[in-house]
Structure formats: C-alpha cells, structure tokens
C-alpha cells in the first residue's frame, strides 16, 4: 500500500526567524514514487525530510500524507519509516530486537513479531545476523538492519537520509542498485535525501534540487540534467559542471561533453577557437581545460571528450571546437533563470 506525500508552502525557521532552513517549499509525490531531494549541505533538504517525518514542526505550511494534514501529529501516528544517515541502530539491542522494536511499539504479540522480523531480515539477507549486536556488524550490514527495521511494519512512506554516505565507495554502488530494486518491489513512496548527484540520478523517479531552503527545480533526472532551470542547477549537477560564458547580460551554457572538436560535430553547430591549457585523462575520457574565445567574453571552459573521439590534441595549441546548437542553453546573468535563445556569432576560421 502506498500513499502520496505533499508539502504546501512549507517554511521552517530557526533563531526566531533569522535562519530559513526551509523557505516555502511545495512538492507532491506520486503514489509509490521515488523522489530524491538533492542539494549541497545546509540547503534544507534534511530539515524538509525531518519535517515530513514529524521530528520537526513546520513554522508555516502543511504536510500531507495520504491526503490528510499531519501537522502537529507525532511521528508514530504518521506511519512513516526513516533510515538515518548514522543508521541509529540501538546499540544495546540485538539485530532481532532492533528489527522487532517498531512492532513492539505497536504492541504486536510476541508470536506475531518473530516471523515478521524474520521475513524482513530474510528479504535483506541478514537473517544469519539476527543474534548479533550492531557493533559486530560491518557498515553494509548495519545499513541493511536499518532498512529491515524501517520496512518491518509496512510503512506508507520511506524516508531515507543519506543512507549510503557512511559506506565506502565500492559498496555504495551496489547498495544503491539494491535500494532501487527494493523500492520497486515494495512500491512504497520513498523520499531520499542526498548531496550526491550520482545517487540522485541513479535512484530518483524525480529529483528536487534544493538550495537555500528553496526548490530550484523538480523534474525527471534527464530533465534536470539537460534542461536545468537556472545556473545553480546547471552547475550543481554534472561533473565537471556546465560551462557558462557571459554574453551581454546572458550566460551561454553548454555541458563539457558537448564541447567537442569541430570535426566531430555534425549538423547545425556553433564553433569557437579553444585555447588548450591542460589535458587530464580520466577513465578513458579526456578532460580538456582551456579558454573559449567566441560566444562572448573569453572564458575558461572544460571539454569532456569520450574515448571514441581520437582527435589528437595538445596543451598549448589552439583547436577549433564546436557545439550542436540544440545543446546550448541560455540563462539570465542577473537572476540565473533560463531565458530564450540569443543569436551567437559563430566563429569561422
């Protein structure tokens, strides 16, 4: 069973209104959706999650779960489950007792609790660890225990607060994949907080990019990447970030992977000389650092050339680069918002 979560004009202020942790957020999820809140640290994403969970009360606005306003209700009535960044396992309880704890709080019979806990543990492949204490577990195992504890009582909403950030890089990729398959199987509405764009891109049905307590853009991963709503989203997502070239009050934006040697760009294109300063080889790709001199002011930019482009390049030389016209985005230099296209004088020769 799955319900939608909605927040309306949510504000959360601290220090008597001086700090706006969440500053007027409107988001609603679909039923069973996987929504990712993405943003730099301090952008308010965790506060938003905690407000949905009921750990914080909003200063203004409403939180709705399954269509009813849950403001003022404590977490336990909201039927949400949460996985904390630290996993927050009860250190004095065994894995079994950890998983059973939410059931115990619901005053479920002992006889009913055991099979449920076992079911959850089996689902996550930790049924052989049931009698251990948390300190005897590895990071990945702890994460699974936290998940098992979250799902054991069939919550209506999963709230995950950076659950992968305590895992090492190798484990993180497999855990991410697992989380996704898991959610697909359970079909429970999930809100996932992260500052890691790779996680966000890989997991989310939709991504809400947040900054300074506001949602900058809410959309599918492709949308957020290809059509960023403003310069914040454009530079926060993508690694290396989108290049922005100032041009008469407008910023001309293009992603590094679209800035390519002109001989490999087919179709309608704009071109610029690129003064190459440095080349890095990163897992087969070439990251080329240099300065573009067309499109506006001379600006440092990065080009990312996949291994499939063998054009020889060298630091110090000048090479003609091009961008497919439909890949260029425009932003207002003052507000940072997307604007309509302007005419770029392509460089010829």
């Amino acid at each position: 069973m799955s319900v939608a979560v909605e927040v309306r004009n949510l504000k959360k202020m601290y220090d008597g209104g001086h700090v706006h942790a969440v500053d007027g957020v409107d988001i609603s999820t679909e039923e069973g959706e996987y929504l990712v809140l993405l943003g730099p640290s301090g952008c308010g994403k965790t506060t938003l999650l905690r407000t949905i969970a009921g750990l914080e009360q909003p200063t203004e606005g409403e939180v709705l779960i399954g269509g009813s306003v849950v403001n003022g209700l404590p977490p336990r009535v909201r039927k949400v489950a949460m996985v904390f960044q630290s996993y927050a396992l009860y250190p004095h309880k065994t894995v079994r007792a950890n998983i059973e704890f939410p059931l115990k709080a619901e005053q479920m019979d002992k006889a009913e609790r055991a099979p449920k806990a076992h079911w959850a543990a089996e689902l996550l492949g930790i049924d052989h660890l049931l009698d251990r204490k948390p300190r005897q577990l590895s990071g990945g195992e702890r994460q699974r225990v936290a998940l098992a504890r979250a799902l054991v009582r069939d919550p209506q909403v999963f709230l995950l607060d950076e659950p992968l950030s305590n895992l090492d890089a190798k484990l993180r990729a497999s855990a991410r994949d697992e989380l996704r398959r898991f959610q697909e199987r359970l079909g429970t509405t999930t809100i996932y907080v992260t500052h890691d764009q790779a996680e966000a891109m890989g997991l989310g049905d939709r991504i809400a990019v947040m900054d300074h307590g506001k949602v900058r853009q809410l959309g599918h991963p492709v949308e957020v990447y290809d059509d960023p709503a403003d310069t914040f989203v454009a530079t926060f997502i993508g690694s290396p970030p989108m290049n922005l070239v100032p041009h008469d009050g407008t910023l001309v934006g293009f992603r590094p992977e679209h800035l390519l040697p002109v001989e490999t760009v087919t179709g309608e294109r704009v071109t610029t000389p690129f003064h190459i300063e440095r080349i890095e080889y990163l897992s087969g790709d070439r990251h080329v650092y240099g300065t573009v001199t067309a499109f506006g002011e001379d600006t440092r930019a990065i080009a990312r050339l996949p291994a499939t482009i063998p054009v020889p390049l060298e630091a110090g030389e000048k090479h003609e680069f091009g961008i497919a016209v439909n890949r260029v985005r425009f932003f207002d230099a003052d507000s940072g918002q997307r604007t309509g296209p302007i005419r770029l004088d392509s460089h010829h020769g």
Partner: protein
Amino acid sequence: MAEAAIDESPRTARAIARTRLADRDGFLAWIFLVPTVVYVIALVAVPFFLAIAFAFSDVTSGDPSYDWAGLTNFRRVFNDAVFWQSLQNTFVFTIVSMLLIVVLGKVLANILVADFRGKWIVRFLALLPWTTPVALSTVTWLWLLHSIYSPIDWVLRNLGLIGDNVYWLGRPTTAMISIIAVHVWRLVPLAAVIIMVGILSIPNDINEAARIDGAGFWRRMFEITIPLTSPLIAVSALFGAIFTFTDIAVVQVLTGGKPGNSTHVLASWSYIRGIGGGDIGQGAVIALFLFPLLLAAAVLILRAVRRMETI
C-alpha cells in the same frame, strides 16, 4: 662521527644538553609526574598504612609513642554496642540513600534535560544543595528540623497532621530519617548532573529513530535511555556509595550521633573515639572497617568500567 660537526663552544654545548633533556619524553614524563607521585605517597599511602599500624597500637593523642597492642583495640571496639549500632547505621544510611539518590537523580536529570524557558535559573537552583559546603547546608537543615521553630513542623501542625512538634532530631528513628533525607537532598543534584551527561551522550538519532519507530516517552525511557545510561549510573552509584559510606559531615553537624549514640556512622564514631576521645588506636580500628567495602566497590567499579568499554 656526528659529534665532530657540533660546535664545541661551551655555551652552545650547554644549550644543546639542555635541549636534549627537554626533548626526551621519557625524562620529562618522569619529572612531570614525580612530584605528584611523591606527594600522594607521602600523604595518602603513608597515612593509609599508618592507620593500619595505629589499629594495633596504644597510641593516644596524650601519649603518641607507638607500642604494639595486638588486638586489644579490636576487642574493645567489638565489645562496644555503639560500634555495632554505627556499623548498622552506616549500611542503612548508604543503601537507603543510594537508592533514593539514583531514582530521584534520574527524575531530576529528566527535568534538567527537558526544554523550557528559564532553564538556567532552574539549573542554578537545583545545583545549590551540591555546590554549597556540606557543613553549611546541613546547618540550614538543623534549623529546618529545629525542635520548636521547625517550619516543617509548622506546616504539618497547620495542616492538622500533627498535634505537637515531631522533634525530628530528638528520636533515633526520625533522626536517622533526617540524616538520610539531608544527604539525599545534597547528592541528588550531583547524581542528576551525571545522569544528564549520560542522557546527553546518547546520539540524538537514536532517540529520533525510536520516535519514528513509534515508541512513546515511557518506552523510550525504559528501552533506550535507561539501558544506555545504566553502566554510567552503576559506576556513579558505586562512587556515591563510597562517599556516602565514608561521609561524616551530615551526621556530625546534624546530630553529632545523638540522641544517645544512636545515629553514629562508622566515620563519625571513629572521629569521636579517635579525635574527641583521643584514643587513636580505637578510632583507627573503627575507620578500618570502611576499607573492605571500599575495596569491594573499587573492584565492582573496575569491572563495570571494563564492561562499559565493550559496549
């Protein structure tokens, strides 16, 4: 050789020697520690063994020469009913006080960690009994329990609960109750602070996870807070037991052992015999009875601390 390169002029040589000494961690470690160790040995370890030696001697403040007296002092102490009374009082005093102190300390700690306006002033007031020199706060209680002007009796009288004053310190049972009450009142703030430290050291996430998992206030208290703070509370309670077991101030100021000698504890009886009566040998014997319990408590503390480290 390396020495050949060193400038041999006397000043630098001395400077280098000094520098070398000041750089040798092993040397510094000793120099830094020795004064404290010497001091502690001279004025804690030596008197400790001296106390044992005195127990087997006839030393009095009038005749301080040491003569071996064997078990004479022990025999005299054991034949004295006051000693057995004070031994019993010491245990009653310690056990009852510690139970009350831990329970009330937990309650006060819960109040002090709660979020409310004016917390600072409440904390300040709550700590007064502990930070005030014990002899002074006990004097205040002397007056609160006064035979004629006790305000406690005044309240009870005006509520019609008692006809005449209780005369708290005039009867053995009420005097003992008073001693325990004052001691509890004095140490609850300390217990509360320690328990508060324990509560605050539990990561916030754990409490919040329990709230999300549906646990209410009492379940969180009994299934999360108390189990997680219990090692700390156990250790502190053992410390508290040691201080209570060996405390003298409350008894000495509040009753001085009166009425009769019915409210003495070992420490105060040892004082009366050893300093008041000048019979240092006997006083030392009585004080020595503090030692086995201290040892037991110390062993328990070590064990609890070791267990704490494995959690």
